[in-house]
């Protein structure tokens, strides 16, 4: 039997050893997020896990740039954008990017039992060794030479003869590549043996370390030659997974990167987890000497369609070759997804009409509104029009008693007048008639909450179903009904897995359940006061300030736990925080549910609708855990 691969089941950055395979899956639109001024100052990239940091950094390694340069015709969008950014030129890579992962043994050093002074110096020495060796490796790769056998062909020629550069050469083992590589290997071996020893270690005998990053100084103040020819590419240091560092290591590294005497390009990526909760709740990024790119936040700023475009590209790039091969289909992945509402029948419309008439309660002016709404070119739009009429009738009924001379018809506007009411009616029709709401490209892309990993997970489920149909020799089209089933199942799984994946999960879950309860209660109100529905809460900025103040927290029962839980939830992208949101002449911090949490509860995921709560109330939620917010009805119909 033929076996099929699901291209969404592995992350792009994990296509580790096949550079071209990695590049083929990368949506070039990710480069649109990169600021223009990134070569003369540090760039700090932040996101939740799976936000695309590693993918972005890996695009700028010399291996990737070389591969793009060699396949410009196969990768036109990537090559065009990389040229525009200045990473590629007509001759090939203009940057010699080298990627180092900080998630290795650096943190071990901090916890080794050595004093902070010794551990700090060993940290800088080890990092120096690895930066220097990786830079040489990248230089060799850019010139088609082998590492480490050709390392002697690389020579650092100081532009300055100041003491600092001379000391850097001395500390790194020499000015020739082979000397530096040998010294780096010796350092690696020496420190690894100390760290991993199962027998007691005398740390005082292991105090030889560095007090600064000599490698950055050398790379900034020396010309690099390869076989006596000046290196064409500018070095670019790419550091990934900075969140794995201990606090003082992270501060020391960022301090070294921000040093104005360092002139090479240097990028540093970390998860939000690295930030203290105080910083996670901030609305602005500090500093002017460096660029900060927060992937999810950038995606929410004006122009976010670019990110939806990126996800669209990622989906189609991953699936197109497989669909073409397996199903001989020439369409894009998303073109196989039916739009919502296509599973409606005339009986559903009749049922919606009956409900509206029941709400009218025999009153002529209400029935006239229903009659006016009782039309539509397509069944789904027809049903939505009728359901909008019902909402308007409910709103009219809930108003205070009419003034003596109010005309009854004036209380109801035509359904077409309000897109918000229509949006709420759309959700109500789908929920009440058990029709598919969560279907179509916009929904699938939107559910990702700007997180690539989450997007791949949803698409992976949909593609798995496509493969099932292909196996049965059927076209890989996915009905709206099936999409809804898959998406709600993914949402259910996401809820269930939270306890296993999130630290402090009991408190985080309590918070989520309460936000979900508020959202469900508001969304289900007959008058749909916040169309199409609510999916978050907000606290005032004054309350946020109280939450950030340790003293104030001691006076609010549950506030310390809320502070911790919120930090974890935001860092893990389970709650999306939008501080400083302007509403009714005041400013609030909105806390939205991750969009993938919404389908489980039949909530919409459009942003902008939330209910304000006081910090005292929200903190008290953690002291009295809520009953799970999962719906009483079975999730999956038989």
């Amino acid at each position, binding site marked *: 039997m033929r076996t099929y691969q*699901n291209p969404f*089941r*592995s992350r792009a*950055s*994990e*296509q*580790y*050893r096949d550079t071209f395979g990695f590049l083929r899956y990368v949506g070039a639109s990710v480069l649109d997020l990169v600021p223009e001024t990134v070569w003369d100052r540090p760039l700090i990239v932040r996101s939740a896990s799976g936000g695309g940091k590693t993918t972005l950094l890996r695009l700028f390694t010399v291996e990737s740039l070389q591969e793009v340069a060699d396949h410009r015709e196969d990768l036109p969008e990537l090559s065009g954008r990389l040229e525009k950014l200045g990473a590629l030129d007509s001759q090939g890579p203009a940057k010699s990017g080298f*990627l*180092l*992962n900080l*998630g*290795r*043994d650096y*943190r*071990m050093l*901090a*916890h*080794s*039992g050595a004093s902070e002074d010794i551990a700090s110096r060993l940290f800088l020495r080890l990092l120096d060794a690895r930066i220097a060796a990786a830079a040489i490796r990248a230089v060799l790769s850019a010139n088609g030479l082998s590492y480490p056998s050709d390392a002697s062909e690389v020579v650092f020629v100081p532009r300055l003869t100041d003491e600092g550069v001379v000391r850097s050469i001395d500390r790194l083992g020499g000015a020739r590549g082979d000397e530096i590589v040998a010294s780096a290997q010796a350092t690696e071996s020496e420190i*690894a043996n100390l*760290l*991993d*020893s*199962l*027998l*007691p*270690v005398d740390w005082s005998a292991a105090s030889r370390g560095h007090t600064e990053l000599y490698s950055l100084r050398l790379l900034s103040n020396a010309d690099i030659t390869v076989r006596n020819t000046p290196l064409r590419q500018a070095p670019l240091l790419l550091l990934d997974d900075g969140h*794995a560092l201990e606090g003082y290591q992270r501060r020391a590294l960022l301090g070294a990167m921000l040093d104005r005497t360092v002139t090479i390009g240097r990028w540093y990526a970390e998860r939000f987890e690295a930030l203290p909760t105080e910083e996670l709740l901030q609305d602005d990024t500090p500093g002017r000497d460096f660029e900060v790119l927060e992937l999810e936040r950038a995606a929410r700023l004006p122009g976010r369609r670019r990110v939806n475009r990126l996800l669209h590209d990622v989906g189609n790039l991953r699936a197109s070759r497989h669909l073409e091969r397996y199903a001989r289909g020439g369409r894009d992945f998303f073109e196989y997804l039916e739009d919502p509402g296509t599973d409606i029948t005339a009986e559903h419309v009749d049922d919606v009409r009956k409900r509206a008439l029941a709400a009218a309660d025999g009153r002529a002016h209400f029935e006239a509104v229903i009659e006016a709404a009782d039309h539509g070119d397509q069944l789904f739009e027809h049903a939505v029009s009728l359901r909008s009429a019902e909402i308007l009738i409910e709103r009219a009924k809930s108003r205070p008693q009419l003034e003596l001379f109010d005309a009854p018809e004036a209380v109801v506007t035509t359904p077409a007048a309000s897109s918000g009411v229509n949006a709420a009616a759309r959700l109500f029709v789908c929920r009440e008639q058990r029709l598919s709401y969560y279907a179509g490209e916009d929904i699938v892309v939107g559910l990702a909450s700007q997180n690539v990993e989450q997007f791949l997970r949803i698409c*992976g489920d949909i593609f*798995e179903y496509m493969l099932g149909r292909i196996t049965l020799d059927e076209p890989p089209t996915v009905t709206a009904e099936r999409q809804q089933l898959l998406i709600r199942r993914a949402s259910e799984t996401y809820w269930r*897995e939270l*306890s*296993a*994946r*999130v*630290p*402090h*999960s*009991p408190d985080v879950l309590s918070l989520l359940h309460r936000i979900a309860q508020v959202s469900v209660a508001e969304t289900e109100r007959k008058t749909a006061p916040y169309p199409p529905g609510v999916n978050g809460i907000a606290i005032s900025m004054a309350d946020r300030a109280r939450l950030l103040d340790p003293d104030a927290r001691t006076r609010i029962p549950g506030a310390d736990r809320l502070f911790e839980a919120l930090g974890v939830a935001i860092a893990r992208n389970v709650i999306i925080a939008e501080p400083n949101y302007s509403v009714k002449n005041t400013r609030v911090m909105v806390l939205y549910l991750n969009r993938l949490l919404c389908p489980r509860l039949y909530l919409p995921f459009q942003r902008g609708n939330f209910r304000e709560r006081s910090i005292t109330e929200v903190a008290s939620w953690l002291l009295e855990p809520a009953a799970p917010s999962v719906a009483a009805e079975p999730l999956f119909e038989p």
Partner: protein
Amino acid sequence: MNETASTTAWRDYVLRRGDAAVELLRAAAEARSLTLIMGDGFDPRTLQTLRSVVRLGVPARVVAVQLPPGPGYGAGTELVERNRQDLAALVTQHNLEMIEISEPDDADRLSIGSRQARRLLSDGVVTAHDSVVVDISALPSRVFFPVIGSLLELGKVSGTGELLVTVSENPTLDGRILSDGVSDAGPITGFVNGFSVDIDERRITMWAPIVGERSAAELEAIYELLQQPQEIHPILPFPAINPRRADDLVLEHHTLLFERLDVDPSNIIYVDESNAFDAYRALTNLFHRSRELLAHVGELQLVVSTHASKMLSAGACLAAWESSLPVVTASPTSFGIEDAPDDDWVDSSSTMCCMWLHGTPYR
């Protein structure tokens, strides 16, 4: 699986259960008094080995290794307190010497074990001539791996002393222990063994996870750390008390193993659930055979992780120590147990197993 000449240290081994396990403790106490190293966790089996030792009436002292408090739930935290009180009562009643190895303030999850293990030796709590029993029933792998590793290292250097490991087996109780959260994956200090995920064309990374129930989040975290290892060899328990356990595990992790991780079903390795040395042999053979086969392609890095019973984890520990294999972990951030089980039920349904790892039987 064929034996290779490389399976040396425990080619012939000493493993006993129940009463026979207790007899091993008696034999080990013949030359010198026993030093029992144990954890102070919530596991209801925490004190089973100590109770056996005091029933034997042999001279002994207790080394209690403190564990990070961490948030527990259900009856978990209550059990920690109860175990501590019972331990204090036993120590007083039998006039035992007790030494506490505290948790270093500045150590993280992955290095706590190695720091505590080094302290055992540097503070002279354990010397090369002692008869040491490590009860791993209440110790997490990130602690007992370095503790056993350090003691094996000490024995190797000195050539003296006795080292035994006990574990109280109870699959039903294992199933009632719940966990939540998952920490970032990383190598256990003392078992890093050159572990690296940096790009190196010459390195071939192979991963052998000992798969257990409800371990999907841990497996995914480690897979993410390893960045697409070239080969994955899941290790499943068979034979087992529940003969369908391996099948159930395959069903539970089907999507993860075969779709996301793209595991070749022929890579699955089965080991005897009740024999640590079977897991040891399987991993050791896998390492030596693969290293030999892949020698002309590159340098093998066989990464081990454990997500199942303590018994199989102990086997992985021996293989990793002997062959210098990296061991990575992504452990839950908190543990709990919904209802504290009755002590009598725990005693009657648990079986103490004892492995003699170093000393008289091997001289």
